[in-house]
């Protein structure tokens, strides 16, 4: 494996600075003050205990979705279907939770999480089978399954599972024993983020401290070389597929059982896709994406606060900023990386 050079580390903040410069120009062009806007982003995401808790809560689904993409990516399996797996995971988790009302949380919550993980994995099973057995590239099956998943959840929340007492397209509330326990009273700071952080540590451990992880990374770095070196590439892909689907399912349930407490239509604003951005921003390293998820969550919550402030910057501009940051970091990193590794 190639050692990352100093240039690659320096390039990271360079990419961030470049993107902030681009963003400032855009802000100026539309008549906003860049400095107060950036201050607003910081105070809007960490300014109060509640805002901080919102930011930390949001890290949970982003981090889990990013891990889901990342672990598969490391074996060169492109799971674009995290969004769909997240919805089906949430549905399975909800179905389990609805049956578990009579049990205490210590029993009900782990079972619900397990069901969600199973649901996510199940939704990835067909693309995974198609890749391993039929050699069909997974990008398109996983992508297409997203839309089917969305239609499934749209259907159940409008039809069979709809709460008849609610005007919204959503299920009745989950039994209270299955709500993820809140860690700080009257905030959104709940167990979900701990699940996500634990998952990041587990994935780090699996990737870098186990034989399976070595095989996964070898399969991703060069499938042909790995195969001739005795690594079963299909087995690596199966392993990452199972982990990826499970993580995606967890990403869905930490939202449903953590804050929403119902399964609602369109409850995900695209966490599955945003996770890919977070994974890229974290340089596809499990611990790197923990940091990236803080940044991404803070921008989102800060952006939402900014929308209501005196500047009233539409949130869409912040979404654009997120894309500009990731793209700039990738471009600068690749550019610097190519130049610093030349001639070695």
């Amino acid at each position, binding site marked *: 494996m190639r050692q990352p050079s100093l240039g690659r580390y320096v390039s990271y903040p360079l990419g961030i600075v470049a993107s902030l410069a681009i963003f400032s120009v855009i802000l100026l062009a*539309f008549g906003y003050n860049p400095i107060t806007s950036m201050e607003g982003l910081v105070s809007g995401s960490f300014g109060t205990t509640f805002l901080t808790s919102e930011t930390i809560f949001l890290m949970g689904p982003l981090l889990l979705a990013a891990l889901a993409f990342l672990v598969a990516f490391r074996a060169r399996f*492109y799971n*674009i279907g995290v969004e769909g797996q997240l919805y089906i995971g949430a549905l399975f988790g909800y179905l389990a939770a609805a049956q578990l009302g009579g049990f205490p949380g210590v029993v009900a919550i782990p079972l619900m999480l397990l069901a969600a993980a199973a649901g996510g994995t199940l939704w990835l099973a*067909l693309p995974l089978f*198609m890749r391993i057995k*039929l*050699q*069909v*590239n997974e*990008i*398109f*099956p996983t*992508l*297409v*399954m997203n*839309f*089917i998943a969305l*239609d*499934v959840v*749209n*259907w*159940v*929340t*409008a*039809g*069979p599972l*709809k709460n008849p007492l609610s005007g919204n397209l959503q299920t009745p509330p989950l039994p209270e024993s299955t709500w993820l326990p809140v860690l700080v009273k009257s905030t959104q700071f709940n167990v979900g983020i701990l699940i996500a952080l634990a998952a990041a540590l587990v994935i780090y451990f699996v990737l870098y401290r186990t034989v399976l992880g070595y095989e996964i990374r070898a399969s991703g770095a060069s499938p042909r070389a790995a195969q001739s070196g005795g690594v079963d590439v299909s087995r690596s892909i199966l392993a990452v597929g199972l982990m990826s689907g499970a993580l995606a399912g967890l990403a869905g349930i930490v939202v449903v059982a953590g804050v929403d407490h119902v399964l609602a239509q369109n409850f995900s604003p695209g966490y599955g*896709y945003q996770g*890919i*951005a977070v994974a*890229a921003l974290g340089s596809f390293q499990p611990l790197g994406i923990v940091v990236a998820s803080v940044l991404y969550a803070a921008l989102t919550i800060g952006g939402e606060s900014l929308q209501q402030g005196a500047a009233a910057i*539409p949130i*869409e*501009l912040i*979404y*654009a900023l*997120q*894309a*500009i940051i*990731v*793209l700039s970091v*990738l*471009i600068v990193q*690749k*550019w610097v990386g*190519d130049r610093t590794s030349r001639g070695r």
Partner: protein
Amino acid sequence: MVSYEDLVVSILAASLPLTMPMLYASIGEVYAERSGVLNMGIEGVMSLSAFVSLWTTFSTGSYLYGLLAGMAVGAAMGALHAFATVRIGVNQLIAGLMIYFLALSMGDFGYVIVTKTTYLHVRPISPVQIPALSNLPVVGPILFSQNVLVYGSFLLAIFLGLVLYRTTWGLKIRAVGENPEAADSAGINVNLVRNLCVILGGTLAGLAGASLVLGYLGLYATGDTLVAGRGWIAIVVVIFARWSPYKAIAGAWLFGLGYSVAAVFIGAGIFSSLGPGSGYFLLAIPYIVAIIFMLVFHRGTKSPSSLTVPYKRK
């Protein structure tokens, strides 16, 4: 009481305008992928160009300016993708998804700003009633009373098919995608061909967005509810079509038909007897068809050899 003949005619007639945006976008993506570059940003580019062309036509009153503006902004996004992936060598999948986010949010941002003061809408381009033919029963309303952008999408697919298979340019593009090293030694500028193909793909994605809004919907909606997956489907159509602009006509039409069946059935209330929410099943049909297609025909679907692999001269 709806007669079955009327139902079939209205489904088929509605399927062609629904095919149009996916067709424009997919023939552009055929060119990009044939040269070796995957662009996952189409969905977002369509959304951005839909807004830009709507706004342009709304402000100037000219459909032509709207179309040109949409294509220009699509070309610009294509150029950005080409810069990131061909020039710099960023992972094509990731760069494309970022282009999706960027373009989608820029379009939404623009719309939010503009609609603070105005309600942005245009009357979609009217159908051309082809004399005599449009009065024919059944085929008249289906084939001979569509608008010019619908006809344009089919003609462009045929034209770009001819270019790809019957001209030296097309040969160069296919060579660059299949075997860039050999193309390079034959004196073809690999990255120039790729840049141009990606920009062409972006331009046609722009035209796709413009045609959706000017030739069909006449308005914009935020949060990707306007393009609503058509850009992603365009990428699936490319696989359906096995990277052929001709076959893209059939592929895009299959999905157009799926959308049309869903829309007409839901409109006619045919599925409401199956319980609330069951209409969503119909919306899933095109996607289920896509999966089945990939399952059944997987052996024939071989992508261009160098797709997603950046080219560096040795």
